């Protein structure tokens, strides 16, 4: 997954997951750009508040505990008044649980 970082947490070497625009809609930095001291300075000059960066693929994926998965399942079930019946609904439901678990994990870190 990509992560959203506020500008004060950004460090040189991180890779942008999506382009960054100024207020006029012009691209300041394209996707896949590696951030440098200089480009971070430019972003601050343009008053960019946050950027979306790619997760470092060398970092091992953090295993999501069964506890968090269960919490995620409960949160999704709270929203729904139904249970999945076909492959599309299982796909939607499972994606929602995994996505919610990821969010819970990000909130913890």
């Amino acid at each position: 997954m990509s992560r959203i970082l506020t500008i004060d947490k950004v460090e040189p070497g991180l890779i942008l997951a999506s382009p960054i625009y100024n207020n006029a809609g012009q691209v300041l930095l394209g996707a896949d750009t590696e951030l440098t001291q200089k480009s971070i300075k430019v972003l601050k000059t343009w008053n960019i508040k946050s950027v979306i960066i790619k997760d470092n693929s060398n970092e091992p994926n953090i295993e999501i505990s069964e506890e968090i998965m269960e919490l995620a399942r409960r949160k999704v079930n709270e929203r729904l008044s139904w249970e999945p019946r076909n492959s599309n609904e299982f796909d939607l439901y499972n994606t929602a649980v995994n996505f919610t678990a990821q969010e819970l994990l990000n909130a913890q870190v």
Partner: protein
Amino acid sequence: MNLSEIKIEDLLLKLEDFPTLPTIYNRMMDLMANPRTTALDIANLISSDQSAATKVLKAVNSPIYGLYGKITSISQAINLLGFDEIRNLITALTIIDLFDKNISNQVLNPVELWQHSIAVGIINRMIGIATHANNIENYFLAGILHDIGKLFFFKVAPQLYAKVIEYSIENKVYIRDAEMKLIGITHTVVGDLLAEKWRLPIPIRQAIRYHNIGFVNEEYHPLVASVHISNIAASTLGYGNKWEYVVQQPNIEVWKKLELQNDFFKNNIENIYLDYIESSNLLLKN
């Protein structure tokens, strides 16, 4: 306020008094209806409104259209995306601006409804692409506008609509049932009337009116079916809120007709997440 004194007729009168879309929108519609209009004519009109031009440029460079920052002028945007796509984009931007986002009450905040609607628009456009739909330019707009009737209710009768929402949450019933009980008319019907007043295209009106059912009088319309699924999917994935607290199950017949890939959500969740962040920044912040 005695809620029982609010009558449907009063609400419909308020609909007549409701703002029309701004001049630039109507001039653009007139220009586009004229077969001799060139891309340059449209570009000149949009460029004459600095704030509209800036927003259009930002939007066309956002991930919604997959052009990733390659567009530097309005005429280039029209050439790459076409008249209809630009028209619908301006319609979305215009209507979002028409509703004051800063007015909320203790129960409801309109920004939350727009956030949900943006997620629906993004998912809807992805479903449109994945199912090789015709008229893909309608998909984002239909998602953005599907709940416009709720914003109308909130604007003309905020206290009453807060009661509707509270009733839905407390009794765990669908919003439409709470609306029928406390107002006597649903947001889907009112939304369609508003869209008619604004002369929005028929497919958009159908999506607003029938998104809860997924069919138009039992007839399959891909856009209506897709908004039906996108709306439920957005809420299921967490892009929902108390404006639609009880999330319904999709109409099983809609799945059969739509023929969406079995792993569509798994494969697209990351793009939904990223597009949502950029698009909501773009559309909801001035």
